């Protein structure tokens, strides 16, 4: 059963990779890599069970936590062309110079 589930996940991963290769738009690639990340979480967990020592789940927790950091970086990359401004209105700090959004 576990082996069958691993196999199914690998098939899914290959299909997702094909989408990442083909594009066509940049957002398709981003989406494919994001889906790839969630599949990685599942594969790492299942591999632990497959190998008989499922206590190394921590790596999967890590991916589940911080995999969307790169998605937010990409969002900023395309929308703002800068990592400097926040995604929100200016936070409540004394403004130093022309920070925040226009």
């Amino acid at each position: 059963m576990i082996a069958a589930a691993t196999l199914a996940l690998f098939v899914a991963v290959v299909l997702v990779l094909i989408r990442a290769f083909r594009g066509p738009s940049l957002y398709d690639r981003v989406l494919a890599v994001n889906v790839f990340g969630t599949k990685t979480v599942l594969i790492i967990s299942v591999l632990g069970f497959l190998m008989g020592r499922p206590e190394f789940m921590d790596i999967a927790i890590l991916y589940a936590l911080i995999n969307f950091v790169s998605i937010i970086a990409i969002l900023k990359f395309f929308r703002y062309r800068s990592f400097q401004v926040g995604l929100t209105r200016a936070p409540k700090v004394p403004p130093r110079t022309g920070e925040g959004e226009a």
Partner: protein
Amino acid sequence: MAELLETLLSWFHVVREPVGGVLLVVGGLLAIVGAVGLLRFPDIYTRLHATSVTDTGAATLMIVGMILLSPTGWVALKLVFIWVFMFLANPTASHAIANAAYTAGMEPKIGPSGDTGEADR
């Protein structure tokens, strides 16, 4: 009451492994369905739809299956954490991608079916 609990527990130990295995396999099939949707659907929005729905579904099924299979409580607890974090982070990422694609001016494909969306490469 105690007897009932004991019976339930013994039942649980009998069905644990088969039910966990079946959930794992069903989750894996759902993951494949989502990936096929990602591959075959015509534009970014439909692809997002296919993957974000099936991804959380597949993750839930597989994680519940693994919780049933897990040998110790710690492993089950870690799996619960994975589930919670995925439920927080996955829809957020989908939202961010959809938002970015929309504000960048990506148009949804509207028209008769059969247009695979590869033409505008």
